[in-house]
């Protein structure tokens, strides 16, 4: 049976997830992910004609909170688990390709 997914696809997904994989891992995940896809494939045996796509697995909607302020953690607690800090800021590796919002 041909693999559902090839090594190029695994490498692409890894890149999108910012994961660094060894060649061994690429081979291993290609087999594993293909097996998972085979398993999911079983679902397509079901007749889903006329069935609306499910947006959420719980049959509820409209869970809201009122627009009220509650106390935040404060700078010290916020930074407590940070691997590195710089004063009141999180310290992170320099962002080169900055297409973030800053």
């Amino acid at each position, binding site marked *: 049976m041909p693999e559902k997914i090839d090594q190029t696809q695994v490498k692409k997904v890894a890149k999108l997830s910012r994961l660094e994989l060894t060649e061994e891992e690429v081979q291993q995940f290609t087999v594993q992910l293909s097996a998972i896809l085979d398993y999911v494939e079983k679902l397509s045996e079901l007749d889903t004609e006329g069935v609306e796509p499910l*947006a959420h697995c719980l049959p509820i*909607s409209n869970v809201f909170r009122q627009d*009220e302020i509650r106390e935040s953690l404060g700078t010290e607690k*916020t930074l407590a688990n940070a691997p590195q800090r710089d004063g009141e800021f999180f310290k*992170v590796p320099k962002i080169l390709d*900055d297409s*973030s*919002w800053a």
Partner: protein
Amino acid sequence: MDHLQYKVVVGLEIHVQLCTKSKMFCSCAVEFGQPPNSRVCPVCLGMPGVLPVMNKQALEYAVLVGLALNCEIAAFTKWDRKSYYYPDLPKNYQISQYDLPLSAGGFIEIPLESGKSKTIRIIRAHLEEDAGKNLHTAGNFSQVDLNRAGTPLLEIVTEPDMNTAAEVRALAVELQRMVRYLGVSEADMQKGHMRFEPNVNLIIAKDGIEYRTPIVEIKNLNSFRALEKSIDYEVSRQIDEFFETGKTLETGTKSTRGWDDVKEVTVLQREKEDAPDYRYFPDPDLVPVQLSKEWLEEIKSRLCELPIHKQLRFVNEYGLNDYDAGVLTADRSTAEYFEQVVAQGGDAKRACNIITQDLLKLANEKGCTVVGLRIPANHIAQLCKMVVMGVASATAATTITTIMSGSPDKPPEVIARERNLIQKSDVGELEAVVDQVLAENPKAVEDVTSGGKKSSKACGFLLGQVMQKTKGQANPKVVSEILAKKLE
């Protein structure tokens, strides 16, 4: 190029920060200028095991804008996760809306300089959360402040219906005026409440063939000026590039360019070979939203007259020119104040002059709105009547409004009397003064009656004498009439 024919094509993506008190999915305060990382909790910090809960106000604000943009409001919407790999959103995804945005398929009317308007189609408007801020340091690292992370943002996407930089600016300004009227955003450019990303390209006609240049998305625009300038720059840059490289939409690649506000140029950031893969999927932590008819009607009832409609009505109903109507309707409370003055019997044109020339200047000096000066509308209406009846001159009105801004409760008549600003228009009283002046200045009288070069100068001299004798309180219009009659 002798007959270079080209058309500019611009579509705009706008992010508007909604002015809720708390963030979109947690109860942290949305507050500008707070100590870094002080408005952060486990939810907006992306800690494992936390559960985001939707802010109802943010949703209703977004629906309100969707309605004002004439969009179809979805009866069913949901939240999706969009992959994101920058440290200013520590969850590694942004909560956004993908295939079921809360509003789509609308339009906005924008005023053009000609006094006409243009309709720009809106593709969609959806809600999403903002990221924090990355700050770049001189050292080999970046700083992250998460206070802004999780702030509700409305993303509005237009069709590429704009054809000049001025039109793009007009849309941005109109949208700012609209969201402020609706009270859903402060839309303060300096605080980053509105951010623009235009997509720009050209259709160039050459040798009877139409060529489309590759699309460029411009980033880092945080002022109307930068928005307009960057598009003008892109237009000339794309023309040059086309004639240098011949690259078109089909043969070139889409690219992102940043705006350098100092050098006033766009700088290449990256070229995209293929569309980015954000791998959207429904957020399992958030349940969908169903908008009932009743709820939608209730939100609809909060809509107000939109600024562009108000501006048009001020022209038609009060006979104001388009420019003045634009100044009055720039701020909703000022426009409403103007209408209160008119309703209290103030002449519309006088009221417009007093508000746009005197009160706006005073308000700017005080750093408040016209309403913030706290001068009762009926006092301005009275002042209008005084000017129309000739009891106060336009100059006196300026003095009176300045005093009013210091003591808002004092009626204009009292101020005018206290400061001797009442203009004399009584014909009998002024005639006596005119007679006296004529008797004292026979030479000037002769110059006027004999006609010729010196006539108008002498006439002005006599008028000046009357004004001097009345300490500037004579109504110059009435004096001129008396003079003309006596010297004809």
